């Protein structure tokens, strides 16, 4: 039992901080959560600028084999990197490519596919999006209807994806499509890689509750994907997808983003005590703030625990869903406590007169609604904890 980071790990953390100090302009605000980076041009541009630099440092896909752009370093170090990027609101980490598609390709890809796709991800040169959800396939992902018909060396795609985060920014998409409509639901799906510039692909923005454009609908009208871009076996895409969803992540970015916001709120409360600008007496809010600090500590270790298990080469079947549920719901609690601290001022949004903390608390309060929905709803995660984790029987 050892809760300390190794000297090299602490040194690495400092190295990242030094890099960010150098690369990010003074007073850099950034997005409160990495998915929000997609919405604002200034932040997105900074991300594109940083990504190749991070790639060059080998920090984006640290745990990957060296031949594909990785450094064969530990998952713990990868998590330290993600933690500091999130806490410092530094954009440029392509989660879809790095944490989902990449590891999946390492496990299921052909040598050619690995050669073609992995290094550009590790180098921060490509940006990916996930083509999973559809209007009729949300939590019931296996119900995907987008058709992929094999024809003359291509899969011809027709159908639609929804909630495609970064679809308007991405170079490539990994997607699930139905290649055998007659097979049982789970057994007729295939996992494909598609160039977003493929003719017949149309991206339509979806506006989220904040008025931001982060996700999209993506329509396929006879879009052709080379059969060489099939990952895993035809009609066995469900196996690939399930593994992908468990390569998931430690979830450290959720906890770190929430911790950054809470630290800003705590600082405001401390200053407000002196300047009288916080409209809520500190006696009322100190317990809530302390509780959030405690929960963030708990969430942090849950995240590192997932990486610890992955480092041992094991699958975090119960730990990853626990971290996801806890971290995403904690973001909501932290944002709510922040709003409670700000009281009436919590209502003000970015750009308003009298704004506090740039409206970031109100932003996370709203955007965090999506965190318990995307990446597997809390309900699905709890199902997984219960069935895969605790061995309870399926309904």
């Amino acid at each position, binding site marked *: 039992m050892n*809760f300390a980071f190794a000297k090299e790990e602490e040194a690495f953390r400092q190295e990242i901080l030094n890099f960010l100090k150098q690369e990010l302009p003074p007073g850099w605000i950034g997005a409160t959560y990495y998915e929000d980076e997609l919405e604002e041009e200034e932040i997105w541009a900074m991300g594109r600028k940083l990504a190749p630099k991070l790639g060059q440092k080998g920090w984006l896909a640290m745990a990957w084999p060296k031949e594909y752009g990785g450094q064969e370093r530990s998952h713990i170090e990868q998590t330290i990197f993600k933690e500091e990027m999130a806490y410092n609101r530094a954009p440029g980490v392509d989660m879809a490519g790095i944490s989902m598609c990449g590891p999946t390709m390492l496990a299921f890809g052909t040598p050619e596919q690995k050669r073609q796709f992995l290094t550009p991800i590790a180098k921060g040169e490509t940006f990916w999006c996930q083509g999973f959800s559809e209007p009729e396939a949300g939590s019931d992902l296996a119900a995907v209807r987008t058709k992929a018909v094999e024809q003359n060396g291509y899969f011809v795609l027709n159908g639609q994806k929804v909630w495609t985060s970064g679809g308007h920014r991405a170079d490539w998409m990994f997607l699930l499509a139905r290649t055998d409509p007659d097979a049982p639901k789970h057994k007729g799906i295939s996992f494909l890689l598609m160039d977003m510039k493929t003719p017949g692909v149309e991206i339509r923005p979806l506006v989220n509750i904040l008025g931001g454009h982060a996700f999209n609908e993506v329509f396929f009208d006879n879009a052709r994907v080379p059969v060489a871009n099939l990952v895993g076996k035809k009609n066995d895409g469900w196996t690939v997808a399930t593994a992908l969803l468990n390569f998931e992540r430690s979830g450290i970015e959720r906890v770190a983003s929430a911790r950054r916001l809470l630290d800003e709120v705590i600082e405001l409360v401390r200053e407000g005590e002196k300047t009288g600008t916080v409209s809520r007496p500190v006696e009322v809010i100190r317990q809530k*703030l302390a509780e959030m600090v405690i929960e963030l*500590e*708990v969430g942090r270790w*849950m995240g590192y*625990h997932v990486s610890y298990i992955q480092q041992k080469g094991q699958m975090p079947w119960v730990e990853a869903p*626990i971290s996801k549920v806890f971290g995403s719901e904690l973001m909501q609690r932290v944002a709510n406590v922040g709003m409670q601290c700000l009281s009436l001022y919590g209502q003000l949004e970015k750009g308003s007169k009298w704004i506090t903390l740039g409206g970031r608390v109100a932003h996370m309060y709203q955007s965090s609604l999506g965190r318990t929905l995307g990446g597997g709803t809390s*309900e699905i995660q*709890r199902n997984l904890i219960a069935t895969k984790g605790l061995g309870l029987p399926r309904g």
Partner: protein
Amino acid sequence: MDFEFSDVQEMLRKDARRFLTEKCPKAYVRKMEEDEKGFTADLWKEMAGLGWMGLVFPEKYGGLDMTFLEMAVLLEEMGRACLPGPYFSTVFLGGLPILEAGTEEQKQEFLPKIARGELIITTALTEPSGVYEPTGIEVKATAQGDKYIIDGTKLFVADAHVADYMIVAARTAPGKSRGISLFLVDAKSPGIKCTMLKTIASDKQCEVVFNKVAVPKKNLLGKLNQAWPLVERILLLAAAGKCAEMVGGAQQVLEMTVDYAKQRIQFGRPIGSFQAVQHHCANMATDVEGSRFITYQAAWMLSLNMPCDKEVSMAKAWVSDAYRRVVTLGHQVHGGIGFTKDHDMQLYFRRAKAGEVLFGDGDYHREKVAQALSL
């Protein structure tokens, strides 16, 4: 970073679990709830024989020289088994205070006997004021020749009825946190009246009234008038230890509940196949997981003598509430059958509340965390 237990810790856990499964079955636990003493001399002797009392004492005092991490592992197993008796008091409210602040003479006199299971000790700290604050202490100790005379009432004193000695916190000078002293009081001293309280956890807490109780000056533990920091240290270790015990209890409740959910059939299928029940179990698992991390962070820091006031408070605040959530959901999943005396769920439910309030509850420790944040 290492989230696993050492071989020594795993072996300690295995041996403790095997021993307690055999020697501390629920029939024993239930019997001891009604028993006046609350434990049997035989079991106490066997535990001493295993070296448990002196687990973290240095070898020169008859101990096994293990760390707080090993202690936490052992406490987990005790919490899992609902072990009754004055072990926690004797170690955390007796042995450890003496180890931390006793003179060499006091250590030599008390620690080996504690390690051998020959002495039961507790601390009499809280009073009718019901707070873990120096301002809550009104029991007085007045100097008289080569003695101090103690007068006043202590409340919620664990195992006072079987203790051979009590470490009594008394006011020896006016002040707030200054003016508090600790005395090792022979429980057989004239003037001590002990009344058993009936508590939710059936855990033998007493009212102890001191009526002109004389204690020799040499039985002062720590510095005269300056013992409050030692009290805080005792509370710190006890809070951390109590967390470990609660983690063990919570884990057992989770296992019991999942087992029940797999077996209990309603509507033609196990109730554990229904999502509502699955989600309760998932929430319990999340709370147990979180409790384990936050507790072992504190235990690890204590094992290395790192300053960890904040981390212990974080652990006690979280676990106090998390264990309560776990037992509540455990009851919910068990349905009617869990709401009977015969079923074991209630043993944990009641102990969870005691664990929550002893040595500072969630509110108390959140306040400490808030102070650590300079709020």
